[in-house]
């Protein structure tokens, strides 16, 4: 019998217990996978906005808790456009509204027709709305499919009815789940005349992006430039909250899984005290005893992690079909999540079984064998 064979044999001897422990680990891994993927995906969605139209950076109102609440006056945007080194700047108004029960949070973008191209909007069917029309809308193709509307159809949102003039795609995936109006239309509906939510800046050829961003930050104290994910917290703390929730959830999952492993390992330690004593007295080293106890935990933990990966994948699929997340949550599957699950399984097994393993190894063989 190989040592590994012995480990499997011992695990199989307490099958039900192994299954329950594995399940605790599986739930932990599921949480890690689901939360991790959700976090990563939401981050990608959120920071995707930074990549709109290949902008070098985004301009937003400082100290808002969410990008969606950012407001910049079109005057300021015009002044930003004149800052030395700015190649082009586009302002867009972004408002969230309910379309129907299945689409409780649709992102509406107000954008001038001539800003569509630099914004990265590519018309797939039909044509753009005209700058002045107040009853025309364009649909991202994913949203169009989801609400079953196409060119020429009418749709009603926020009590207003619009005709669909075209469908489009954008260079960032969640843009395909938005709808787009002429800027003044959206400004009018949301009492935001003369205001946009975000500005997208592309610097002039040869200009230093960082220097330009800094110049804007200095010239407009009420505004903040966001060039990278790490800048994101300056204008939106949602990501910080999501990351914190992810970390917290991960810790919780680890605690649950570790308690499961610890519980099992301790139980089997107490049941097998005598056996450990015998093994020591026939020449087993402490190291081998530790390897046995840890090995048994690792086997159970890894099996649990494997199941947990599938559960996590299932959970992501469920989340994806949650109406609240539709259009915002586009799962980004990351190979790293697989590695992290392995780490999790090993870590949980190690932390959970270390104490029982060390106790088993440092038992006095005589005292151990005296136990019944």
């Amino acid at each position, binding site marked *: *019998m190989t*040592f590994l064979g012995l480990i499997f044999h011992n695990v199989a001897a307490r099958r039900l217990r192994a299954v329950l422990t594995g399940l605790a680990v599986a739930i932990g891994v599921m949480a890690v996978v689901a939360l991790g993927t959700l976090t990563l995906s939401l981050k990608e969605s959120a920071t995707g906005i930074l990549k709109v139209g290949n902008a070098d950076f985004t301009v937003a109102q400082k100290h808002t808790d969410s990008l969606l609440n950012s407001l910049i006056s079109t005057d300021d945007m015009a002044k930003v456009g004149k800052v030395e080194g700015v190649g082009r700047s586009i302002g867009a108004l972004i408002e969230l509204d309910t379309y129907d029960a299945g689409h409780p949070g649709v992102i509406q973008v107000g954008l001038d027709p001539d800003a569509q191209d630099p914004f990265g909007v590519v018309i797939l069917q039909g044509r753009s709305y005209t700058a002045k029309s107040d009853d025309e809308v364009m649909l991202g193709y994913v949203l169009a499919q989801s609400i079953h509307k196409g060119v020429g159809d009418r749709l009603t949102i926020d009590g207003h009815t619009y005709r669909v003039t075209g469908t489009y795609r954008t260079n960032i995936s969640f843009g395909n789940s938005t709808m787009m109006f002429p800027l003044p239309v959206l400004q009018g509906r949301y009492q935001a005349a003369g205001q946009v939510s975000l500005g997208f800046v592309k610097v002039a050829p040869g200009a230093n992006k960082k220097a330009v961003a800094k110049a804007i930050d200095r010239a407009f104290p009420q505004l903040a430039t966001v060039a990278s994910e790490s800048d994101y917290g300056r204008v939106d703390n949602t990501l910080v909250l999501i990351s914190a929730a992810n970390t917290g959830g991960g810790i919780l999952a680890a605690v649950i899984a570790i308690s499961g492993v610890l519980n099992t390992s301790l139980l089997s330690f107490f049941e097998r005290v005598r056996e450990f004593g015998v093994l020591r007295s*026939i*020449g087993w*080293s*402490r190291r081998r005893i530790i390897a046995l106890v840890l090995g048994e935990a690792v086997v159970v933990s890894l099996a649990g992690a494997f199941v947990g990966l599938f559960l996590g994948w299932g959970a992501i699929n469920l989340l994806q079909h949650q109406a609240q997340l539709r259009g915002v949550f586009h799962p980004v599957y990351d190979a790293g999540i697989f590695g992290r699950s392995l780490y999790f399984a090993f870590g949980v097994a190690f932390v959970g079984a270390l104490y029982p393993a060390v106790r088993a190894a440092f038992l006095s063989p005589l005292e151990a*064998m005296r136990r019944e």
Partner: protein
Amino acid sequence: MSDLLEPAGQRTDRRLERQRSADDPNAITVRDVTRRFGDTVVLDGVSFDVAPGSFTAVTGPSGSGKTTLLHLLAALDHPDSGTIRVNGIDVVHLHQLTRYRRREIGLVFQLHNLVPRLTAEQNVAMALFDTGLGARQRKARAVDLLEQVGLANRVGAKPPTMSGGERQRVAVARALANGPRVILADEPTGSLDDDSAGSVLDLFEALRADEGVTVLAVSHDPRLNARADRLLRLADGRIAPVGGS
């Protein structure tokens, strides 16, 4: 019997060899050994020698310290004072206890102490880890040993389904696994019927005669004592040859 003691693929252990003194001709040398538990003096200056290749039985009333003595010899316990040498190795001051237990001695317990989940063969093979043998060789040797103790047909049986005699013979096979020069046995026949006891004793006899293995068995089983070369009696913390001065 000849392959019973073939060294199990082990290289000589330098650290253990360094502890071995060449000028001790005895298999076991015990000098002035004292062991107390609290106020109870169980062993009070015990001294005796055991010649290599002999079969010695230690008797004595219950509670006289026979098992205690055996544990000291197996380095499972420490004396309060005195010296113990087994195969020339100073057991009292030894650091390589695991290696000593694995290579120098074979232990047969008062209770058989087998792992109930494992088959006879697997129980024997447990003693063969860390000996340089691969899994297949371990298995082959375990099967071999079980054949030698007359359990060729019980190789795949688990202890709960075996008779007391069978279990005790598995325990003997396990003790022999690493080809030890000294077998320490605690009441190896105490719980066995005549046939089973006879087969275990035959085994000891054969080991002694064919391989020159030293057997020291603690027992108040007259069947065992009758087969021993020498009978020592432990009483009141002292040891003395039976019938001697």
